[in-house]
């Protein structure tokens, strides 16, 4: 079959650093083509080149067999090629509907027709399986909802090629399933779909062909038939990935370090209680919007909330993150771009920001010590950066997550709260992060893992607390850990039943 879009020997350098070399890829109408690879392998960069956001340094693109260059993304879009970014690219001050139609407003008599746009926005969001209010300002949306809006925007007009860069990283399984439905529909219409994901099961489920990149080079392009996730992982990482989760450390003790009683966060959480033991990994599950983030943000003083918090037997109340940090509690935000890292500053400044006191000699910052710490962090956390002088925003998505982890670990906390620790992280790194979390627990620290990936909670945690609609719905002990148990608590119905409801058989 003829290809719609074909890349020929594409290379891309940022200055002297080559991040893509000689990549060829051809994309056929009506196929879902997955691109996988480790963090920093160059997937996003390739997508940006295909969709006109970046010009290639070498090589060229062919559209329907004719060579073509895109002057900018708008030009590419005019040729029927659209990219859903890994970063959220929406105007925070505009409403959902306004964002969806930005640059292509529906007009009536020369004026914008808000009613029509609202209705279309509503229907397309409905199709994606979400209830987001089209009149809501984007700044008030959770990241998941923003991602959905971004996807909706790309689907609003018909395209020949749609590229998704890790669309499901922030979505729940249910939302992801609606997205796959849509992708299949697109495929049926003869649209070519490019699909990047670190969730290899998803790739298996949705893709027709898979291209693997490693260190900016093309490793393989295979049909999905006979390509199992384990093999994909091997191609990506270059070694066998049989064991993702480490042994659960047997350090979970009865010694309570933190208890929270009747925590309330106005508008988000009511009556939440929990106990955290020394050396344990406590999972927090639930659907997106269940209020997990808010609960822990309130706990560490990042948003107003009230409740009784006991740390090591003493009553505490944190007014801001600094006090929590001083008490040995750190919280790693799920929103690494908006709340985790200073995207416009370099790695060194980002790394030391939370723990500056540790780098202060006398009154001044010891920059040499910072540099040493950066070397250490790059090594320990395997941050793939080809130059130390990048800005944090220039790191690949997964490497930003590692930098955030490194930054907060410099504080040497006793209690670590990690919100969505492996969002957008490749499978090799995931394994590293899991091992790291397990080692924290093994050292006797207490770790809270907030995650929307049930497998992760099951594979990693000693206990899982599940939240639903701003309340703690229940707890699953280690011996009972199963997807069904968690889903039941998260939704209030058993898995099969949930599937039935979703399928409309209720």
């Amino acid at each position, binding site marked *: 079959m003829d290809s719609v879009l074909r890349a020929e020997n594409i290379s891309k350098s940022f200055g002297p650093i080559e991040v893509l070399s000689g990549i060829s890829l051809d994309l056929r109408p009506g196929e879902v083509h997955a691109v996988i690879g480790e963090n920093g392998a160059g997937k996003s960069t390739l997508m940006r080149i295909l969709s006109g956001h970046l010009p290639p340094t070498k090589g060229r693109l062919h559209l329907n067999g004719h060579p073509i260059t895109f002057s900018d*993304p708008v030009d590419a879009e005019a040729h029927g090629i659209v990219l859903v970014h890994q970063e959220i690219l929406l*105007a925070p001050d*505009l409403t959902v509907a306004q964002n969806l139609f*930005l640059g292509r407003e529906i007009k009536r008599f020369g004026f914008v027709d808000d009613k029509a746009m609202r209705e279309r926005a509503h229907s397309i969001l409905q199709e994606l*399986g979400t*209830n987001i*209010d089209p009149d809501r300002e984007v700044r008030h949306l959770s990241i998941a909802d923003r991602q959905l809006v971004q996807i909706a925007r790309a689907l609003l007009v018909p395209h020949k090629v749609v590229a998704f860069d890790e669309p499901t990283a922030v979505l729940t399984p*249910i939302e992801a399933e609606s997205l796959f439905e849509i992708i299949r529909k697109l495929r049926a219409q003869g649209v070519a779909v490019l699909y990047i994901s670190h969730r290899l099961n998803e790739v298996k489920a949705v893709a027709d062909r898979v291209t693997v990149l490693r260190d900016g080079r093309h490793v393989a392009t295979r049909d999905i038939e006979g390509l199992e996730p384990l093999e994909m992982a091997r191609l990506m990482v270059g070694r066998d990935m049989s064991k993702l989760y480490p042994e659960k450390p047997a350090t979970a003790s009865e010694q309570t370090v933190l208890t929270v009683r009747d925590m309330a966060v106005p508008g*988000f959480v009511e009556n939440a209680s929990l106990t955290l033991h020394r050396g344990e990994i406590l999972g927090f599950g639930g659907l997106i919007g269940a209020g997990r983030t808010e609960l822990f943000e309130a706990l560490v003083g990042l948003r107003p909330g009230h409740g009784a918090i006991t740390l090591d037997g003493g009553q505490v109340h944190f007014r801001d993150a600094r006090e929590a940090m001083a008490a040995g509690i750190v919280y790693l935000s799920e929103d690494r771009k908006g709340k985790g890292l200073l995207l416009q500053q370099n790695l060194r400044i980002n790394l030391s920001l939370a723990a500056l006191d540790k780098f202060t000699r006398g009154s001044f910052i010891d920059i040499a010590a910072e540099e040493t710490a950066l070397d250490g962090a790059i090594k320990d956390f395997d941050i793939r950066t080809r130059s130390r002088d990048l800005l944090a925003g220039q790191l690949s998505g997964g490497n930003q997550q590692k930098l955030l982890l490194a930054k907060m670990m410099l504080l040497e906390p006793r209690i670590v709260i990690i919100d969505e620790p492996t969002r957008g992280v490749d499978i090799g790194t995931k394994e590293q992060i899991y091992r790291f979390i397990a080692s924290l627990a093994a050292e006797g620290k207490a770790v809270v893992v907030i995650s929307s990936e049930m497998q992760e909670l099951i594979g990693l945690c000693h206990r899982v607390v599940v939240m639903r609609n701003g309340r703690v719905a229940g707890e699953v002990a280690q011996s009972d850990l199963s997807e069904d148990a968690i889903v039941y608590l998260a939704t209030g119905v058993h898995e099969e039943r949930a599937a039935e409801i*979703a399928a409309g058989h209720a």
Partner: protein
Amino acid sequence: MTETVLPTRAEKRKFKMDMRALSPFIALIVLIIAGALINPDFLTASNLLNVVTRSAFIAIIAVGATFVIASGGLDLSVGSMAALTAGVMILTLNSQGSADMGTLALGMLAAIALSAACGLANGLIVTFGRIEPFIVTLGTMGIFRSLVIWLAAGGTITIRNLELRELYRPVYFGSVFGIPVPIIAFLAVASIGALILYRTSFGRHVVALGSNEDVARYSGVPIWRVRTLTYIIQGICVGIAVLVYVPRLGSATPTTGLLWELQAITAVVIGGTALKGGIGRVWGTVVGAVILELVANIMVLSNFVSEFLVGAVQGAIIIIAMLVQRSVHRGR
């Protein structure tokens, strides 16, 4: 199915938003009550009409500033631009012998054309030179101001033909159905401004640009055109303000329009538009302009503030008015 939001939240949020947009009005009401308590003459129709009429120039200019600021820009040159436009307009009127409507129309046309051109110049330098608008418009502020002084040879430019002045006077002093013409003009400008900002795709683009330039660019918003246009709109607003201003005193001096830029920006900010862009509130801006003029009026009407301390009390009132606004929409 995913339950995302607690049911009441959407309602609550909507109400909150309205409070934010409403809060300049609340500050206004508080001020009016304060004024009435301080001096009974304050609430007379003639006094209030005076105040609102006077606020017309700043209000009209500030409507333009709302566009520039909402798009993430800034224009410091408006005061000088007003002086230059007024000067050139009067010189145009003087160059014609006759005192008829034609002459007047010609002068008005000249004013609008010049101010739009000044705005265009600002816009082009900001967009194509990629210099901070603060610096660009500070520079053009000096240029425009100097040009007036030069045209006036340091003195005053006055409408020489007295008949023409009389013909023109009603544009400031006249009224239609009891409403002074300047108030009608400023309501018209604000309405059109609101319509453009809220109901056209250009207006949408302005806000998007101020909110996140990259997003706007990727969405196919013609950044340069939009940005330049905001400055042109600002220029045209200045031109309209001048049309209303000139008949009042019939002259332009080197001090005409001094510090108007500060007043316009203040009106915009009081009205709830964020200085960093992304939010634009035309009606808030208009209320902001009226608030500024009201505060000055109350100062003169009150008897217990020494002339030396007027500025201090005025400054304090503006801060307090903002605190009132804040506490209103935080309290909910």
